[in-house]
């Protein structure tokens, strides 16, 4: 394991970089472009930050909704359908 790590090839890094690029949503991918790895990293950071914000926002909304929903039926339904798919 450690011997593989000490010989990191250019190809391996490029493969990871392109995989990372494919994860970014369309809009961000375009602005990242193919040219600059630095830009790609910057876009990745922005994307991660926006995902963190979304988690925060959805936690807020879920918290509000949970206060009002009929717990037993809604949850049972959610659990059932999520685990079936």
């Amino acid at each position: 394991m450690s011997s593989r790590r000490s010989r990191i090839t250019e190809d391996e890094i490029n493969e990871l970089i392109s995989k990372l690029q494919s994860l970014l949503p369309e809009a961000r991918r375009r602005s990242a472009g193919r040219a600059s790895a630095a830009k790609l990293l910057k876009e990745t950071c922005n994307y991660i930050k926006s995902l963190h914000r979304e988690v925060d926002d959805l936690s807020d909304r879920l918290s509000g909704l949970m206060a009002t929903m009929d717990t037993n039926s809604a949850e049972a339904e959610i659990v059932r359908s999520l685990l079936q798919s």
Partner: protein
Amino acid sequence: MNSKKKRTLANPNPRNPMQAFHFLRSLSRINLSTAPFHKRCRAIRRAAYASMARSASPNRAWSHAVLYQLHRRRRRPVPVQARCKTHQNDALRRLLPGGEAMDTCRLLEETIDYVQRLRTQVKLMQEIVDSVKDDAVHEEKRQKEEN
């Protein structure tokens, strides 16, 4: 016969239901407690990151870092002191849990995995929110019809 069409949820990651399972289980536990709004909100957020970390591969450093931070009651990494020479990786290292001590290759691998889990978590939470809202709308309609 009241035929209400309930919207069925789509599991954002069918190959790994564990993330959904962990999160839903945490949600039902949170629901049973009668904490005030802001505490519940924080608990949900912690549950989100915990379920991401618990369902990740055990060889992922970020998942251990997340669980450790949650245990210490810190959600985000402690900001690293600004260095004299900033490398392009630095910002990413600060964002990725456990990212400080990794080489570039590992950092990229971990980032890819972390982003995938984060996206799944966001989709999962969005699905739940939409489903609960739909439930509420259906319930309202049903009650109106009955009256």
